[in-house]
């Protein structure tokens, strides 16, 4: 009787052991899949992190380059804008800073059209020491009755600490039926 019980016990143990092996065999691929999924996820995260780092580095480099080339303390930018433009058809703008020619920009029909439609063009960017500087802008084009027109505007401006922005503005003076050329400092 005792032997019978022992045999039954052994049989049950073996059955359980076999069952456990089967379960273990079945769960093995599932674990591997989960592990590989995890691995992929971490790889993807690594790629994303790397991408972010590259973007950050790129931004830092860009800012650094800009600071080096045009340090905020010495940076001066000159913009050109047109208001209406009925009495003046822009052809070119020549800029002289302290007697030295720094830009001679020819405007195509398309570019002049963009200005009339409200566009602003950065004609020139420079590095200037702090102190007083003289800007001479010469505008050429066609004036009223499509006559050749050449006008200059001069300003003496003070370059302090920090970037400076100047605007060369061409407007229509309806009363005189003439264009007007003004140089303004942006505050």
């Amino acid at each position, binding site marked *: 009787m005792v032997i019978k019980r022992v045999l039954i016990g052994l049989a049950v143990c073996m059955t359980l052991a076999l069952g456990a092996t089967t379960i273990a065999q079945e769960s093995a691929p599932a674990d591997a899949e989960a592990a590989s999924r995890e691995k992929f996820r971490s790889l993807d995260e690594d790629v994303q992190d790397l991408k972010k780092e590259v973007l950050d580095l790129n931004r830092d480099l860009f800012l650094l380059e800009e600071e080096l080339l045009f340090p905020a303390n010495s940076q001066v930018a000159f913009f050109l804008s047109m208001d209406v433009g009925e009495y003046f058809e822009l*052809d*070119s703008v020549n800029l002289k800073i302290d007697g030295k020619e720094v830009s001679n*920009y*020819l*405007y*195509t*029909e*398309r*570019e002049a059209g963009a200005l009339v439609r409200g566009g602003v063009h950065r004609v020139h960017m420079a590095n200037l020491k702090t102190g007083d500087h003289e800007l001479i802008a010469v505008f050429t084009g066609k004036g009223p009755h499509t006559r050749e027109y050449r006008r200059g505007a001069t300003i003496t401006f003070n370059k302090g600490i920090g970037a400076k922005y100047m605007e060369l503005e061409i407007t229509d003076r309806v009363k005189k039926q003439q264009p007007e050329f003004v140089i303004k400092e942006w505050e």
Partner: protein
Amino acid sequence: MKMKNILLGLTFSVLAATSLASSGLAGQAAPDFALKSSTGENLRLSEYRGDVVMVNFWATWCGPCRQEMPLLDELYSRYERVGFSLLGVNIDDNSSKAMNMAAELGVSFPVLFDARKEVSKLYEVEAMPVTVLIDREGTIRYVHHGYKPGYEEKYLDQIRSLLRE
């Protein structure tokens, strides 16, 4: 000794031919410029992006230019409608001379004036004529220094291949 001289001569000829056919500019982005044209309009190279552009540097005192220009004009009239532009950049100090010569030769492509020689410097023009071919992306693909009869065949092949891209 004689053989050595011949070999040396041959080497120099090959070197000269290579330097004429290729240029450091090929493969680089075409430097942008704007110049006044014979019609009074200002023309800017970057506004031709999307077209195959030929920039031909010429002068009134250059004999080969006189030979080449009518042939270039033929190419221009033939391929203009399929996206080919030709800009003739004159480097004379006096633009009226250039206008007279262009009228005499009957060229129909735009003639631009580079009296300040700024654009010629940008394109490293050291011979006359110089013909630069720019693809639709704005990259310089071919640079030809000088002109000899038969060059127009090369231009034709190159324009056609660039237009097909």
